[in-house]
């Protein structure tokens, strides 16, 4: 067992050496046109992955067996913890999560080596060379500042536990997904750098990169969705987004990768926006690194600061500067060679996609400026200030509204050149949306405009998708069959766009029409809220595997019919000495009922906070739709190996 730990440590060291070799040999080989040097690139990448995977599995095994001779296990685990959280504990701390980062990084490089058999060897060597450079820096970061295999001299009998907030199924899988997203963008980045080195970007390049960007984006979407869902049911007051620096850190690469997905389509189909797409690919990974920096350094204080250390921050800042600075420099020298040949008129799908990109990049920029502003203000004018949710809501929302407004118009416009007639086709849709806004406005006069506008936009997006599918079906008979036979990429696009509509509906419903009640209830008491009745049946104490809990039983009734029974809890984790809340939630299609029970009051009874949250589930349902849309698009025929080879031949013949 001890032997294994040392072997894993050694494995990481060898992986670092291989990463260094894997950077130099393929990149130099590509430059000097040495075939055998370039052919070594996949070998280096696969070996790195195997070694890191071995180390990671040893670390998992150490957590499962509670090997407290390892410092990370000692500080972050405990024998009483349920098995799943022992495993999740591997990445619930700085060292382990960084090892996971490196594992995924090398996994993606190995996948690139496996799946990219039809890639020109020189391009592949360059992609894998850049990928190895990234893993070399992160492996040295891991080994020199945050070694997961460092030991303690006298291991005690038990560990110090894991932040109880992290002991939750939603959060157990939130970091891996987010990392898959962050790190997936590294492949896109490597492709961009390779393209700059080659001095060539074409439709084939765009087609090779797209699956990587898409899968990274799907993982990011799922990861952010999981995190937001977790915050909703776990943090105790049912918000879904707090504009916390760490949340922003994941939102920024997401926004840029959305922009990248759209601009890469223009490269692939219309041979335009090449340099811009390369820049976005650099920025997307740059923001992933910034995200890692923000989370790991704790430079911006946040509720997520469970594993931070300023010294490590400096190291990541250095990595960030080298990669982003270096690649931007390379970009500045080489962007000129990316000549775009596709011309388009001002009203065209290309233009609409440019506006889409502009809005996404500006919204990312706003989030970025808002996130780092407290630092900037303190550095420049010595003011200590905060930038909180109200700022982001004001600055970010209009951009997203703009994005949603142009989306259905842009996605139905023809490529290259459109006329006003194409815009006029959408009038019935616009009228319908205004009608729905008006209807909702009439139903709830006197309240904020946000609800009706948001619902109108959501409806606009969803109907826009339906209209587009209908238009794609063409004229005449067997429309339905023709819709079914549309390429999967079109279905993916439709599903993801509808998903955005669903999420916007959910956000609008939840923010505009939430009903809230705070009161003291004695056991047996009953009260009414928004058509429901709640009865506090009992409050009892139990003992969980590694916590104590006070659990209330709350009956939810509608017209004296029992809807469901909720069990809100207050838990206390004695090892970490931390209390947590578990809300009692009854979910339904159109609303959630969300109950939190607080402390026993001195005059008897318990504080009870109840929310009716309209359309809450739509927020995450929309995220699932978006992710599923990405998956559909990923399965499209044009990314299968044989198909793209056939296409290449066709291009050559022409």
């Amino acid at each position: 067992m001890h032997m294994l730990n040392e072997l894993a440590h050694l494995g990481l060291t060898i992986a670092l050496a291989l990463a260094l070799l894997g950077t130099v040999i393929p990149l130099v080989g590509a430059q000097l046109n040495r075939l055998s040097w370039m052919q070594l690139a996949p070998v280096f990448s696969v070996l790195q992955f195997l070694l890191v995977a071995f180390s990671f599995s040893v670390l998992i095994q150490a957590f499962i067996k509670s090997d407290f001779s390892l410092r990370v296990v000692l500080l972050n685990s405990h024998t009483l913890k349920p098995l799943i959280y022992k495993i999740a504990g591997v990445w619930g701390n700085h060292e382990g999560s960084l090892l996971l980062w490196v594992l995924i990084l090398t996994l993606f490089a190995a996948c690139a080596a496996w799946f990219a058999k039809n890639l020109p060897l020189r391009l592949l060597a360059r992609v894998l060379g850049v990928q190895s450079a990234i893993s070399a820096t992160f492996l040295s970061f891991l080994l020199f500042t945050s070694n997961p295999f460092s030991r303690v001299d006298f291991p005690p009998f038990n560990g110090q536990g894991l932040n109880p907030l992290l002991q939750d199924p939603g959060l157990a899988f939130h970091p891996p997904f987010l990392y898959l997203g962050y790190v997936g963008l590294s492949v896109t980045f490597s492709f961009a750098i390779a393209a700059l080195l080659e001095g060539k970007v074409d439709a084939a390049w765009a087609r090779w990169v797209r699956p990587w960007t898409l899968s990274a984006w799907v993982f990011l979407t799922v990861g952010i969705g999981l995190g937001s869902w977790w915050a909703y049911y776990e943090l105790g007051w049912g918000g879904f987004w707090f504009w916390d620096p760490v949340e922003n850190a994941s939102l920024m690469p997401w926004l840029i990768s959305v922009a990248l997905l759209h601009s890469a389509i223009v490269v692939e189909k219309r041979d335009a926006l090449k340099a811009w797409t390369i820049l976005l690919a650099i920025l997307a990974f740059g923001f992933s690194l910034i995200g890692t920096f923000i989370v790991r350094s704790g430079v911006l204080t946040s509720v997520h600061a469970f594993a931070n250390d300023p010294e490590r921050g400096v190291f990541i800042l250095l990595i960030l500067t080298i990669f982003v600075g270096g690649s931007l420099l390379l970009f500045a020298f080489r962007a000129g060679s990316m000549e775009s040949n596709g011309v388009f008129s001002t009203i065209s799908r290309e233009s609409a996609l440019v506006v889409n990109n502009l809005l996404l990049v500006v919204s990312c920029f706003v989030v970025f400026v808002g996130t780092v502003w407290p630092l900037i203000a303190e550095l420049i004018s010595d003011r200590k200030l905060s930038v909180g949710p109200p700022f982001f809501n004001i600055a970010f929302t209009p951009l997203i509204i703009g994005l949603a407004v142009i989306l259905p118009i842009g996605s139905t416009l023809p490529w290259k050149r459109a006329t006003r007639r194409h815009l006029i086709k959408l009038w019935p849709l616009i009228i319908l949306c205004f009608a729905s806004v008006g209807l909702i406005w009439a139903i709830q006069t006197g309240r904020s405009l946000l609800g009706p506008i948001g619902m109108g936009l959501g409806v606009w997006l969803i109907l826009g998708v339906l209209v587009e599918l209908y238009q794609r079906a063409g004229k005449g008979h067997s429309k339905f069959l023709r819709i079914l036979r549309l390429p999967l990429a079109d279905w993916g696009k439709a599903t993801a766009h509808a998903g955005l509509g669903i999420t916007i509906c959910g956000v609008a419903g939840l923010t505009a029409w939430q009903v809230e009640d705070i009161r003291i209830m004695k056991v047996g008491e009953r009260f009414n809220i928004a058509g429901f009745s709640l009865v506090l049946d009992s409050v009892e104490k139990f003992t969980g595997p590694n916590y104590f809990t006070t659990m209330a039983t709350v009956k939810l009734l509608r017209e004296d019919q029992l809807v469901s029974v909720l069990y809100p809890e207050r838990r206390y984790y004695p090892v970490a000495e931390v209390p947590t809340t578990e809300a009692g939630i009854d979910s339904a299609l159109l609303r959630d009922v969300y109950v939190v029970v607080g402390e026993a009051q001195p005059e008897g009874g318990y504080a009870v906070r109840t929310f009716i949250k309209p359309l809450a589930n739509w927020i995450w349902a929309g995220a699932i739709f978006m992710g599923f849309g990405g998956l559909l698009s990923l399965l499209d025929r044009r990314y299968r190996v044989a198909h793209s080879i056939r296409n290449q031949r066709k291009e050559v013949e022409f």
Partner: protein
Amino acid sequence: MRATLAILLVVWAGLVLAVEPDEIMTNINLEERARAISKSLRCLQCRNESIDESNSEIARDLRVLVRARLANGDTDKEILDFVVSRYGEYVLLTPNGKGINFFLWLSGPFSFLVGVSCFYVFHRRAQRTLGTRPLTAQEQEKINTILPL
């Protein structure tokens, strides 16, 4: 690690309810204003929460203070000014537009305008250079072979 745990304790100690039942004002309008103000004030002890969301003692004191001032007939602005004069602008979750913050608030609209004008310039140039370029002799020859007249 100890230090981190200590911080976590401060942050999460009794995060349960934030606004307690006994704080709520009987006047619904005033209570609504109180909630709105609370949402824009930062809890000084917490990592990144408004006093409306936080259950720490200091947040509770501030909530009570806000409500007392409201009951006194103060305007929202007077209350915010008072809290700022006491704790500094750090407590404002909505940064004011004074001084350097001007750039923060304008970052969105400004970068959007820059983006639009860049696109306009590039687009015009691309249209002029590429859109009106006559075919080269080679291209014309290729067309003639594909489409013989």
